[in-house]
């Protein structure tokens, strides 16, 4: 008993000392901070390029070639929270993308590092804010910032820091915010293109939307409503639901479909795979005969093993702004080469890889301009040609979203034979509404 007590006391003292040491220690040691050292060594080829924060003359940690400088990209991802299926895959794609770029010699004498300033937000706004404050003085730009309210929360700081960032969400509001560079079409636009495509097959007269309210499901359904307005179809309403783990079951959504008069020809979904299978399977087994149109996050490979798979195969289609991982384009081929034959965890990997091309375009333009500072990045954005190597249509970035809307996307459908459970049936779907629609604000929420 005495032994035990003494041990406890020692532990207690040790803990207290450790706490004090950690709390008093200066976490921001300028001596080891690679981001704040301006380039001074005149012997490397980078000397005619101006740079300051987030770029160093010294090579990256684990650099392929020690003669290169280093560009640090910050990434704030959800790696352990409810959207870790998005964050981990997106981040893995980023790592693989830049590893390939570095392997091929880097950009303009620099290699790119996405590991040092990777932070986990666990899909929590507080952790997102603290994560950003840790890396804000050390990175050139944000390679990915996951979460809509999360990214909006750090927006003022980003403006103060002259920082640009790539959002790892497809909320339509990003197209109206200066420091955030959306790489692909919004969820809102996904629905417009998807409905155009469905309308060419069916015709679509009655549209219903089911989704989580907010930046994702709300945007998806708002797009469906916009489409119905433009195409003269009948919008039957937005049935708001929640994750099954929160609301218990999707019976309310299924009931809304079955009890609707007239019944919808198509139901646009903005939910997660779990709810997709439950809604599609449940509605079909109770006699519903319409179709379901799902946004990118409504699908996951394991759905092929569920009892709902026959129903999904029959009536579900999937839209993706970037072609599926097995598409035949140079960009996809480069991604598959990096993967070495195994499929990625999900299609967010493909999105993450595609976002690499956008960042590469920004960095290369800035280097070509001789100004690799944060302001230098902002200066090259307007009119920047973004070439996704075929993964998505090339665009000329600009302040007005209506001049560079993504009007074609891939339409896919389930197949148990495909490794991620989807095969593309139309790699470049578009339609009259997609080509004529314009936006003057976000489909949902405010900027």
């Amino acid at each position, binding site marked *: 008993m005495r032994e035990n007590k003494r041990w*406890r*006391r020692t*532990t*207690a*003292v040790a*803990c*207290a000392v450790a*706490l004090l040491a*950690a*709390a008093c220690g*200066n*976490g*921001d040691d300028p001596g080891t901070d690679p981001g704040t050292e301006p380039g001074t060594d005149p012997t490397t080829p980078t000397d005619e390029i101006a740079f300051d924060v987030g770029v160093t003359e010294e090579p990256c940690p684990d650099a392929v070639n020690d003669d290169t400088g280093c560009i640090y990209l910050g990434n704030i*991802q959800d*790696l*352990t929270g409810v959207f*870790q299926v998005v*964050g*981990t*895959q997106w*981040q*893995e794609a980023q*790592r693989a993308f830049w590893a390939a770029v570095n392997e091929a010699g880097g950009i303009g004498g620099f290699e790119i590092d996405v590991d040092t300033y*990777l932070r*986990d937000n*666990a899909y*929590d*706004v*507080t*952790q997102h*804010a*603290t994560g950003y*404050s*840790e890396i*804000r*003085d050390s990175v050139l730009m944000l390679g990915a910032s996951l979460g*809509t*309210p*999360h990214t*909006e*929360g*750090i*927006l*003022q700081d980003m403006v*103060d820091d002259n920082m640009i960032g790539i959002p790892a969400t497809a909320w339509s509001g990003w197209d109206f915010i200066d420091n955030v560079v959306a790489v692909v079409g919004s969820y809102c636009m996904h629905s417009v293109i998807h409905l155009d495509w469905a309308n060419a097959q069916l015709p679509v007269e009655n549209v219903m939307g089911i989704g*989580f*309210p*907010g*930046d*994702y*499901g*709300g945007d998806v359904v708002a797009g469906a409503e916009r489409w119905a307005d433009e195409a003269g179809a009948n919008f039957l309403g937005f049935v708001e639901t929640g994750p099954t783990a929160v609301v218990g079951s999707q019976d309310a959504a299924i009931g809304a479909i079955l009890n609707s008069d007239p019944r919808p020809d198509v139901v646009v979904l903005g939910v997660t795979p779990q709810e997709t299978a439950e809604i599609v399977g449940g509605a079909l087994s109770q006699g519903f005969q319409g179709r379901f149109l799902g946004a990118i996050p409504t699908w996951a490979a394991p759905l092929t093993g569920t009892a709902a798979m026959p129903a999904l195969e029959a009536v579900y289609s999937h839209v993706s702004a970037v072609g599926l991982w097995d598409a035949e384009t140079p960009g996809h081929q480069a991604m598959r080469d990096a993967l070495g034959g195994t499929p990625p*965890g999900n299609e967010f990997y493909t999105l993450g890889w595609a976002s690499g091309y956008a960042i590469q375009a920004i960095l290369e333009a800035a280097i070509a301009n001789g100004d690799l500072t944060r302001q230098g990045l902002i200066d090259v954005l307007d009119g920047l040609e973004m070439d996704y190597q075929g993964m998505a249509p090339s665009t000329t970035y600009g302040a007005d979203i209506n001049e560079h809307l993504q009007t074609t996307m891939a339409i896919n459908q389930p197949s148990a034979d495909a490794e991620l459970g989807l095969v593309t049936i139309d790699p470049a779907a578009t339609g009259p509404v997609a080509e004529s629609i314009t936006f003057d604000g976000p489909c*949902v*929420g*405010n900027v």
Partner: protein
Amino acid sequence: MSALAFFGLRDRRLRGRPTLYTDYGADQALLNTPAKRWSILLVVLLSVAAPWMVGRDWVLLLTLVCVYAIGAIGQNLVSGYAGQVSLGHAFFVGLGAYTAAYFGGVETASVRGLELEMWLWLPLAGLVPAFVGFLVAPLAVRVRGQYLAILTLGLVFVGLHFFNELRSFTGGPGVGRRAAAPIVGGMDLSRPQTILGVDLDGTTLYYLVCLGLLIGFAIAARNLARSKVGRAFAAVRDRDIAAEIMGVPLTRTKVLAFTISSFYAGICGGLLAVVLRQVEPAKFDLFLSVEFLAMVLIGGIATVSGSIIGAAFIVILPRIVQDLSPIIPGLATRADGSDGIVSVFQLNRILFGVLIIAFLVLEPRGIYGIWIRIRNYFKAWPFSY
């Protein structure tokens, strides 16, 4: 009554006998020992000087510590001092955040806002939750113990429903709304300003504001705890029937505890929203309530300083784990941990849970209890008892 007391302040203490009190007032003073006076002075000075000693990221963490500490003091008042364990704190924090956002926020096409200044919206952010707390407390007074914990948990779920649905006030789920700006006299306290010739960046200025508020609210809570009300709280906590027999009005005391606690929670919410800038309903979930309860249990039950230490522990622990965990060998390099056992980020979360367990297993009285033990050890030194 000793004759010394007649000689006024100078001679109220015997030299070299700091804990010998010769009158009730000295015993009950806020800072009743020289050690307390000196250590508090030192801590306050260090806290004020901190922004010039540490990086901006730590200033933000310290701001969060101050803000969460105000909420934790509120939690401790109802759960630690008055013994009414509430899991509803997140609801009142959220209510405070949205009250502040409504009175202080900017009106847009989809949300309402009055754009009042901070000296108006901050008190309102406390008063509105206090009033709601006052209204719901009579329901909570009927049940005790863990029944009460789950009953108050219901508040969080009902509150989330309101936050999700009252969209002209809250912006709705997944989107949220802008927080109120901390403007006093036309000056935004979260933006760079020059005050008395000192250039302060927004993070530092807002940290100093929160620190000042924390000191004020901590003193107020400490004062409350040593008053008649505080003694009533303690009596209700220790044995409520006995308290009732002694003439402590049970319902009134419990309702008062909930009301004051909700006020603190609301202030915390209003201040927190400024840090987060975007207020989204999902923030105010069960997890936030559990965090506040963890702060109280880990810091120390029924101590104001324990609440602050607990808040510091919960806010800073993830950062310390993050800074230390790369030295642990054998971690997976992939973000999802698929090429090893776990990734560093997964390990961070596991360690967060494990450290909470470890602290409570080793020292159920919390970090404050560790301090008491260290203090007693040195007081009795060289004797071990």
